[in-house]
């Protein structure tokens, strides 16, 4: 059967450096021109296509990439990923409304907060195995949401309104409906994330995660400091989730605990598995499809989540490894990126 992933990887491996740069630039240009693609067909019934592209699609892509480090790379089942997203968003919301800091100044703070939370959660939780980790992280996600819901000092159920837009750069103004500018900004974050993951995957860290995912005991006994690498995976994943949260709050300008339910964690998890766990391109594709689809099929309005659930079941039964599975090829040259 034709395998898109192998075909793509094959082309990539056969190409020399200049061709690769061209391919990469071409792909980036194509992605960047997405918001220019007008056409009423792409508009979803409730929102303009340009806006859907920013949220959910771009935000989902960022989060799915982050969660992929945790689940796809190191095999840690995190069902509370939304917590880091929420922490990033609330950092933006609180600091943005209460201090004079702007989005770009808050971004590193939000990332740091999320990483810190990842550490606090990871140290006790990562000593546990598989399903137990799942339930602890799930609980953590709920705790963060319930806390936000019940702390009136951060808005309680009403959330935070009036979050400022990012400041103008190069004369480009981030107005609420300047979707293209937002999209391009988010695209840069996406590219940075992809760069980071690819760099990490090829060398020691990537192998450590891979060995942990496949057989953690064997990894530990072959000298891999498994706990440390699991923490790293967790904290890096959290950092990406935190970044997504800051960006999200800077776009919607209004957040409330309802934006951070378990459903978000599950949706992002679904993006990762649906696209192809462990494979960056699969994950990106999964996030694009699952970000766009539910909005696009709003014409079946009420039944859209139902259809979404059915698609998940079908997909898992027909292609359990996702649309673009991780590498299955024999020939894998370790110094090249195996995403």
């Amino acid at each position, binding site marked *: 059967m034709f395998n898109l992933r192998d075909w793509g990887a094959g082309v990539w491996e056969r190409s020399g450096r200049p061709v690769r740069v061209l391919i990469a630039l071409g792909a980036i240009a194509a992605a960047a021109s997405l918001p220019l693609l007008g056409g009423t067909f792409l508009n979803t019934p409730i929102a303009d296509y340009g806006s859907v592209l920013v949220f959910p699609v771009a935000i989902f892509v960022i989060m799915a990439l982050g969660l992929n480090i945790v689940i796809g790379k190191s095999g840690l089942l995190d069902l509370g990923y939304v917590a880091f997203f929420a922490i990033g968003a609330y950092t933006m919301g609180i600091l943005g409304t209460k201090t004079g800091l702007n989005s770009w100044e808050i971004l590193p703070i939000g990332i740091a907060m999320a990483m810190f939370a990842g550490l606090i959660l990871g140290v006790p939780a990562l000593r546990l195995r598989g399903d137990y980790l799942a339930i602890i992280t799930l609980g953590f996600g709920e705790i963060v949401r319930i806390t936000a819901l019940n702390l009136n000092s951060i808005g309680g159920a009403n959330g935070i309104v009036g979050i400022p837009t990012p400041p103008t750069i190069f004369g480009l103004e981030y107005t609420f409906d300047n979707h293209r500018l937002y999209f391009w900004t988010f695209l840069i974050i996406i590219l940075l994330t992809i760069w*980071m993951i690819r*760099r*990490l995957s*090829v*060398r*020691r*860290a990537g*192998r*450590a995660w*891979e*060995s942990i995912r*496949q*057989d953690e*005991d*064997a*990894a*530990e*006994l*072959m*000298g*891999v*400091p*498994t706990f440390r*690498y699991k923490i*790293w995976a967790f904290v890096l994943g959290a950092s990406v989730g935190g970044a997504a949260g800051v960006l999200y709050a800077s776009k919607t300008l209004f957040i409330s605990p309802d934006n951070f339910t378990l459903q978000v964690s599950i949706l992002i998890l679904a993006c990762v598995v649906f696209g192809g766990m462990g494979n960056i391109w699969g994950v990106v594709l999964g996030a694009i499809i699952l970000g766009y689809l539910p909005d696009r099929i709003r014409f079946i309005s009420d039944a859209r989540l139902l259809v979404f659930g059915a698609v998940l079941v079908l997909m898992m039964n027909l292609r359990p490894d996702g649309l673009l599975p*991780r590498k299955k090829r*024999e*020939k*894998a*040259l*370790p*110094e090249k990126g195996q995403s």
Partner: protein
Amino acid sequence: MSESILKLQNATMQFGGVVALNDVSFEIKKQEILGLIGPNGAGKTTVFNVITGVYQVTKGDITFEGKSLKGRKRYKITRGGVARTFQNIRLWGDMTALENVITATDTHKRSGLISGLFGLPISRREEKRDKARAQELLDFIGIGEYADRLAKNLPYGVQRRLEIARALGTEPKLLLLDEPAAGFNPAEKVELAKTIRKIRDAGYTVLLIEHDMSLVMGVSDRVVVIDFGQKIADDLPAKVQNDKRVIEAYLGVPEDAS
């Protein structure tokens, strides 16, 4: 030659009511091949498990190069110079043979996540060096041609040998082999015996669990026998073979049954 590298002192391992090891003491000398034999369920694998930190002994102590291994983290034991293979093969199936070994060589890398992320020269250098080293080890064990095959697709015998190469990748001083010849035909066994001697001659110390008597007796310098968790003999192969208690322990089991 006579200096000891690893010592078990009255090691006892209890699982609930089961006493898997009962007051076992023996030592391994540098550059020795020590055979560890005993009937099924005698506690041989448990010896490996307590040495490598999978379990903590309930009583007694284990010292490696004079220092106690008690409470030491498993990966630190490996870094300190003890590596093992698994009786039930536990390779990372979705990695290539070469990647399996490189992952083991990572044990001694100084570069980690951060230097990898920014592509620092140290990370590049170590990467290159260890890739070469891993290939060298595969060649040394005689499976160099399988380097780029996924571990799970390798023939059984190659997988067993890859386990050894991977353990060697951690640059151990002491190598623990858990039934490396299980499922081998006689020709393969002879080949393996050669490899084990080659490993010792390259400067490693070997502790070998094996059911095949002719293999153990042929290759070992000394043999320790355990039965029901207790040490019943510890002597030269020729003496052990004629030991009354050993013969009793194996009674009913033909001498070279595997």
